[in-house]
């Protein structure tokens, strides 16, 4: 049983990692969501060692520790709130840069840095010339 959960969590993490590395901002968020589900699944699986999940009505025999279910619920709620925050942030970024592509945003930032670099370089040369 544990091995099934382990593979499922690993697969989710892998899919999430693939999405996080993509170029669209919304896909990055989806990647984070999938990775968070991988963590939640691990949390649920971490206590499923003594029997079936403790869901009422309880069957015969021992059931697993229900604490991890409570933790998983908390983690899901926190994850949802944070993802909502991240999506709101992305809306603002898309409005500010008028783009949903990471490359274009990075390009805008690089241009800005290059401009500053040229400025300080020109200043430096003027100072050098004045010193000579």
């Amino acid at each position, binding site marked *: 049983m544990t091995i099934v959960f382990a593979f499922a969590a690993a697969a989710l993490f892998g899919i999430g990692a693939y999405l*996080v590395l993509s170029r669209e901002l919304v896909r990055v968020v989806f990647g*984070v969501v999938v990775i968070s589900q991988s963590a*939640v699944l691990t*949390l649920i699986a*971490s206590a499923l060692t003594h029997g079936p999940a403790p869901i009422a009505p309880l069957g015969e025999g021992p059931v697993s520790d229900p604490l991890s279910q409570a933790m998983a619920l908390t983690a899901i709620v926190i994850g949802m709130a944070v993802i909502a925050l*991240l999506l709101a*942030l992305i809306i603002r970024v898309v409005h*500010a840069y008028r783009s949903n592509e990471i490359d274009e945003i990075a390009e805008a930032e690089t241009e800005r840095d290059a401009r500053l670099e040229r400025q300080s370089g020109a200043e430096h040369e003027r*100072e050098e010339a004045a010193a000579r």
Partner: protein
Amino acid sequence: MTALSIALVVPWAAGTVLVLLDGRRRLVGWLAVAALGVALVALVVLATSVASDESLVITTGGWPVGVGITLRADPLGLLFAILSLVVLIAAMLHEVLDGVRERAFPGLVTLLAAGLSGVFLTGDLFNFYVFFELALAASYVLATYGGTRRALSAALVFAAVNLLGTFVFLLSVASVYHVTGTLNMAGIAVRMANVDPNAALLIAVGFFVAFSVKLGLFPFHFWLPTVYTGARPAVAAILSGGLANIGAYGLLRFGGELLARELELAAGALIIIGSASILYGGILAISRRSSSEVIAYSAIGQVGYVLVAIGIGGTVGFGAAILYTVINALNKTVLFLTVRMRGVVIGLVFAFAGFSVAGVPPAAGFIGKLELFRAAAGSPALLLLLFVGSALSFVYVFQIYQYDFWREGRIGRPAGAAQQILIGSMCLLILAAGIWPEPLLALSHAAAQVLAGADR
């Protein structure tokens, strides 16, 4: 008991209310400062009572021990909680005096304070994660403060990277529960000894990655310069002086107490990563020309010292790591707060904080470096590394000082009288800690004694 509740509940309740109010009004800003002040007083009262006897452990909600969530106030947690609150109060005062620009700012800083105090004072692993997320969620929004394009894209990077870090942390929490069957940190520390070493090592790596991302150590640093330079000075001070403490605390608490055996195993690797961080941060800081960039790269270098000290281990190593974290947080706060201001006092303060970063007496940084040298006394290579690191920091700090203050390269407005007093008093705190270091030394040694792994 009541002091502990006040320290956690007051900032949380105040933050929830203040987020709803218009923070641009002065009154709201001052209310937030007052709430943080109350929490700080409660923590100091708690610290005096804990210093006299054993650390305080409370099980919340009147549950039997082992069932309820435990809160724990010991010297290590209290020292970090007090440090973070001092930094947050300074940054908040600075921003309130300057004029708050966005309505949520005071409430978010107060919530961040609640999250940080919770992280440092909890004795329960999952509760640690909850407070951790509270602090981080507040700081994701704080990173957008100012609302410029740059701040927004920096906040996006910050939020995405740190979210991944927290999920790695959560994976490790789940694994710990799987192998030990408890969430109580004291219980985990005991049961970890019987766990399969391979599983324990994997868990330890997960925690290390999660906390290194927070600290901005060398291979995990890539988000840090963007965020610290994109954010406003007060936010940069809060992130580097307040939030980054979680990383140092986590490495100390999890490495020194919960996973002491794994820390010992990985000591060499930690020292190597720390050294790489010191050199990388120092060299890149020299290549930069704007003060916020220099300080951001310097932050990467400075946390390297903390990691090296943790790698050395033992009471001396952990003590040095704790002391250096405290001093580094104060230095970074002062440096970031002065980034966009001009004036004679600001120049003096910047130079003095620069002395502290480089480790020149009488600034507190000297004491921090001295402790590091003491911890590394056995190894000539490490002594050389520390020396090179200090030399690099001396060069970058005064290169940027010369550029900003002698050639008037600094953009910004002259500081107001109240802000000068605030920054001056933070600077005096660093001076006082350098001239009379005994209390801080005693505190950091008491904090290091808490960690079980310090016995080796």
